[in-house]
């Protein structure tokens, strides 16, 4: 009888998310790593991350900062000789890290994404000023203070709206019904 390993289970979880299935195709050529503008800031480079995931190192992969430093610039995706959607694969790992509650504490990107999504969920649109203020206050009020010059220059040039764009009440309800249903269906996998 075929024996299922830890690695098999992790690969299956990743593969079930659209774009994640490419993990099986990687030939470890390193093109993604060579193309990534942030590879040197990651705990593990994109190609290392794939190798680790295939070795079943779930904890190490999901708690790393690597996928949170992905810029979604898609350079790896257009260059991959195996046609792996590498950026989507990074997103799949982010989704799994959130699902497992193991997001890296050494980057503020998960918290930033969460703040952004909370605003979009409740309003249907993104009020940039409110979102940024909320995020800085939540994570590092000192940075909020340091952001004042940038905020002031945006304000002076008429680029900060305090008021959020609102959908119609029907639109808001419709969107909520759709998103709540999506939530009840679990993730994309």
């Amino acid at each position, binding site marked *: 009888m075929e024996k299922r390993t830890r690695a098999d289970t992790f690969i299956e979880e990743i593969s079930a998310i*659209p774009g994640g299935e490419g993990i099986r195709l990687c030939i470890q050529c390193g093109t993604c790593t060579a193309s990534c*503008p942030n590879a040197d*800031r990651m705990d593990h480079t994109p190609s290392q991350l794939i190798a680790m995931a295939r070795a079943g190192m779930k904890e190490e992969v999901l708690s790393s900062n690597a996928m949170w*430093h992905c*810029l*979604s*610039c*898609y*350079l790896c*995706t*257009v260059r991959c000789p195996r046609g792996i*959607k590498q*950026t989507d694969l*990074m*997103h799949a790992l982010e*989704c799994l890290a959130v699902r497992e509650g193991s997001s890296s504490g050494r980057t*503020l990107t*998960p*918290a*930033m*994404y*969460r703040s*952004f*999504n909370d605003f*979009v969920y409740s*309003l*249907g*649109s*993104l*009020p*940039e000023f409110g979102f*940024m203020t909320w*995020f800085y206050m939540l994570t590092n009020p000192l940075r909020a203070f340091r952001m004042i010059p*940038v905020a002031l*220059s*945006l304000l002076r*040039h*008429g*680029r*900060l*709206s305090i*008021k*959020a*764009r609102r*959908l119609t009440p029907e*639109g808001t309800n*419709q*969107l909520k*019904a*759709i*998103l*709540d*249903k*999506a*939530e009840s*269906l*679990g*993730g*994309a*996998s």
Partner: protein
Amino acid sequence: MRYYTYFPGCSSSEGGAKAYGWSAKAVSKALDVELIELDDWNCCGSTPYSSVEELASFCLSARNLAMAEKRGLDLVTPCSSCYVILNRTNSHLKEYPQLKAKVDEAMAAGGLEYHGTVRVRHLLDVFVNDIGYDEINSKVKINLGGLKVAPYYGCQMVRPRPSFDHPEFPQSLDKLVASLGGEPVPFPLKSRCCGGSLIISEEALALELIAKIFDSALSNGAECLITPCPLCQTNLDAYQRRVNQKFKTNFNLPVLFFTQLMGVAFGLSDEDLGLKTCIVPAERVLAKYL
């Protein structure tokens, strides 16, 4: 007159890139393009939603696409992030039937159906391919007389799907600049990343990427940059001082939306173009054309 359904996105409607929305509309009018805004559209969710809440991200896009589908026109957005996210939903719904089943079920909760027929276009694509460089050139009232422009494409308009331009060495903005009488400078980093939304959570890392882009533009003689992306514009413009402080540099490069530069060449009023919203003043290099 050509008609399109218009999806401004949060930044270009009431966000930090209002001037992009204003200039997009003014230039479209000059080119006989009618942009009809999609009623009651919602945020596309951008990178944050697609990174951590996959299914909800596809649903956010699908609602917009379903509403656009009823109109039967191409859906045009000036925002590179909206462009990549809406297109991603289109292609993923075709490629992954299981995902489509879930999205369909969620959409039904809102009384909507999406059949996958909407073509999502970037505004630049519409201008250069539907209207064309010759037609654009024929509207020029004030020739830009050799203004040296670095065409900054950024990432998400040209990648990851094959679109209207090359994913690494795109040309459309270069040709657009030339059709306005300007001179597109060679710009090796024209489609490299500005740091995107990581400017908020990982500022140091993004500032480094921005500095490299300025360096590439300036060393090739650029007097200003143009971009088709609200986030790229904000990162390069609003954070330029931060870059200078951090790296002891002296960059002073105006960053315009490509629609603003077109508007200047078309002789449109500043009121329509919002040039004063640029944080690094644009008047300095544009004075002779205004």
